């Protein structure tokens, strides 16, 4: 499988790119309690014209006419509960996020990278652990009882390939043969036939987590503008676009041709939906990063009643920190956690916080012993978090300590990611996990959701 971020110094490129993308953008900053400017509200119907501005890419909907999607989105029941999955790409160093400063071996294994014993804030549920200063946003929510932490999550016989391990997490099974994601299978069972927003990736292309077998899902590139510029003026341009659309609807005799046709049809569909809506508004001030901007858009979409069930988004930064870990990790982590905190506050201000649960994960943790490049290599147990007003707020699986490591000198696993999935399905989404996660009955269900 290709197309994953792996083993590069991703952060710098992203910074370069996001710096360019952010230049000149001012976010709509509205303090809590200020009246909303007239005419900026986003309705369910107006989303369709806006969807052009979202560069909506629809997957798995080839069997139904595109017009039906519009109707489907307009008609679909808004889901009561939404799960937002945030992916730390590259294998985030759990021993930095929740640093075991109280463990005597920590500073031995990490002579250069160990967090200072007084850095960040104490993790109240286990005084041996401290939150990384850049994770302050999460620490704040944890104090409020809105974060369930998994300090050593993983699975037996951990695989240390980014691609393989991430694939396991995406499909919810230790098997490389699956073609649907764990949330995709959920959507196949509960989703609508004509509502692609029910599974939404906010990273331009579809997350394999929500890859379905039957039901349509979608990806968006940005939460901002879209058009299809041409030097050709009306009325000739109307006929031109009509012919462009027909390129998309003619029959195909090969996979390549049908791929072009599908993309052509969808592109023209978006163009016709172009509506000229202005910016959405937020009830809180978000950091001016592209990750936060997407979350700000997401909060506005949820508020508009868009019929989403599961949403995926990549965390800011890249976490494959083989070298120069301290700087890269803290920059990405801070952007991510500040964004999550602002998103939570926005949801609270909008009265939506009881409807949204955030799950944060990575494909693995990193080796306890630092390498010679001021970085760390691929490890085993990592960290995960479930965040939200309805999160139970209790640690799942203890931190196993560094005195005894696994056979590869990695942190031992004290919770299984599939158990987390089972609990999220049953306690949050109200769905039988056995129909989604193979071998679900063999996992204990940690309590992740407040009664």
């Amino acid at each position, binding site marked *: 499988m290709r*197309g994953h971020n792996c083993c590069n110094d*991703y952060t710098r490129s992203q910074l*370069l790119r996001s710096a360019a993308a952010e230049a000149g953008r001012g976010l709509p900053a509205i303090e809590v309690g200020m009246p909303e400017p007239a005419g900026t509200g986003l309705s369910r119907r107006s989303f369709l014209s806006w969807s052009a501005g979202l*560069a909506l890419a629809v997957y798995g909907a080839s069997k139904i006419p595109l017009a039906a999607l519009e109707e489907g989105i307009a008609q679909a029941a808004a889901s009561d509960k939404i799960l937002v999955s945030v992916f730390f790409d590259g294998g985030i160093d759990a021993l930095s996020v929740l640093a075991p400063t109280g463990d005597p071996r920590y500073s031995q294994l990490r002579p250069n990278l160990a967090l200072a014993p007084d850095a960040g804030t104490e993790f109240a549920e286990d005084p041996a652990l401290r939150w990384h200063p850049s994770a302050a946003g999460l620490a704040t929510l944890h104090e409020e009882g809105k974060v369930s932490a998994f300090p050593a999550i993983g699975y037996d016989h951990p695989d240390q390939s980014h691609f393989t391990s991430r694939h396991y997490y995406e499909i919810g099974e230790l098997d490389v043969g699956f073609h649907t994601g764990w949330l995709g299978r959920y959507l196949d069972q509960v989703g609508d036939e004509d509502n692609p927003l029910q599974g939404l990736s906010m990273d331009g292309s579809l997350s394999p987590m929500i890859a379905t077998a039957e039901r349509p899902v979608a990806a968006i590139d940005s939460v901002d503008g*879209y058009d299809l510029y041409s030097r050709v003026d009306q009325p000739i341009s109307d006929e031109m676009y009509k012919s462009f659309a027909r390129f998309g609807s003619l029959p195909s005799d090969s996979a390549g*041709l049908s791929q072009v046709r599908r993309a052509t049809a969808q592109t023209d569909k978006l163009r016709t939906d172009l509506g000229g809506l202005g910016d959405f508004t937020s009830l809180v001030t978000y950091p001016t990063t592209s990750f936060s901007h997407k979350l700000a858009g997401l909060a506005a979409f949820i508020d508009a009643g868009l019929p989403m069930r599961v949403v995926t988004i990549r965390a800011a930064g890249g976490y494959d920190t083989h070298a120069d870990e301290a700087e890269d990790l803290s920059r990405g982590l801070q952007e991510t956690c500040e964004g999550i905190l602002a998103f939570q506050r926005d949801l609270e201000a909008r009265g939506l916080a009881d409807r949204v649960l955030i799950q944060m994960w990575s494909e693995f943790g990193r080796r306890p012993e630092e390498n010679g*490049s001021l970085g760390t290599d691929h490890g085993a147990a990592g960290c995960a978090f479930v965040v939200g007003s309805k999160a139970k707020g209790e640690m799942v699986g203890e931190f196993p300590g560094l005195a005894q490591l696994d056979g590869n000198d990695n942190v031992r696993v004290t919770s299984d990611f599939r158990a987390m999935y089972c609990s999220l399905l049953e306690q949050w989404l109200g769905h039988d996990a056995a129909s989604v996660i193979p071998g679900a009955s063999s996992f204990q269900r940690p309590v992740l959701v407040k009664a």
Partner: protein
Amino acid sequence: MANPTATASASKPKRHGRHRHKHAWKDKHYRWVPDGECGWRVQGYVVRHKHKPRRGHHRGPGPRPADRCAPAVAVDRDPRPAGAYQGPFGAAQAKRLLDRAGFGAVPGQAEQLATLGLVGAVQSLTRPSGGAALHGPGPVDDDNNPIAPADAYGHDHLWFLDRMVRSDQPLVERMALVFHDWFATSNAGVSRQQQMIDQSNLFRSACFASFLDLFRAVTVNPAMLQWLNGAENTKQAPNENYGREMMELFSLGADRGAYTEDDIREQARALTGWDYEWSNELGAHNFHFDPKRHDTGTKTVFGRSGNWGWEDSCRLCVEHPLHPSFFVEKLWSYFLPQPPSAGVRSGLENTYRGSGWAIRPVLEAILLSPDLYEGPPMVKPPVVQLASMLRSVGRGVDTEAWTWLCEEAGQQLFWPPNVSGWDDSRWLDTSRLRARWNTVDYVLDSISVNAWSDSYSSTETAEEALARALASWGSPALRDEHRAELLDFAQRSEKLATAKWQQGPYRALRQNALLQLIGVSPDLILQ
């Protein structure tokens, strides 16, 4: 060794929000364009200067470039080998060969290549003699200055694109692109663009010979040593990054049972010893092997023990029984949309093993295979489509827009998304197709007509309009249903011109619309 903070060689300029500058000084320039044969003719075109141009500044066309193609020498190198495509080899087949093994045909090139016969045509690509020649005007930036590939952000992309457009050894450029994806390295982790360009030139020089030699050269290539931390991998503190990816992505593949986690650790030990120096002026430089950093102990890789070093590390991968199947399938995937049959694959593996891991024999067998000429089309990567379009309209690299347009279409050269390269299954979605649409609009700058001058024909028929538009695009072959749709469009448009004053201008608009539609038709997106 200090741990340097790599920075890009130049900061990225602010992207244009819209598609062109609102205010521009329009200025007539002259350039050489293909004359339809092998030579050149002068063409006038309008340049939109961002700043008021100086009086008397160079407006072209400059000295006449060398002819673009040598007259074909007919060599009868058929009959074809067993297993090769046995059908007719005419212009259509030669066009497909040039599409897949190069960047499309300039007008007349496919017909000429067809005269060589299948085997001769393939060998003319796989066995070029001497160095490549670049024909036509050299690459310039938006201000008409020569590009600065090593120094200016995005100009490395323009440099490679220019070679795709102008080199008379197109397959060498295509293979440089293949290996750029295969050993995907990015500016994101490399201190200087020149090091990326050097790596690209390594691919050019080694793309047909021994894969083992190439693999070894890449392993200690300065860009790669930075990208996957090879120079930070020492006896005292092994860094497994390269040791893992060299097997997973470059030579053996994941999840095939080819190697274990222990093999990765042992490979990392074998690879220890490389180092470089750092200065703010030069970035990472003076890459060298330092025996003091090398682990001289015994390593056991794939069950074979010895005091292995980095050259052994590569050799052990290539000698692994699962390497040939990985190699031939991966190479095949760059040229054909569906995997080879088991029989074809095992034949290719035998060829590869029998040649001592030489790339050229496998490549030639792939380019001769019936699947290439009879099988389904595949989607062109964005830069391949752009280079092909520029060649077909006789244009070169004359704007920096080609960089950000390709980035939006998903393929900025020297910035692959990650170490596994570009994902060929994701070239087309609504945002990337939109970027291809915009790219076509930029290409039209040199072939579109002035829609609001009085000079456009007020009597041009639909058929004439389509013929003119196709000629501007270098006469690409269209599927029948697309030709029919374009003709239908031309007729519908003509009916909209009811008033006398509309006859000329509407036809000019129609012409530009036809040019746009051809550029975004499946015929130009597919190869």
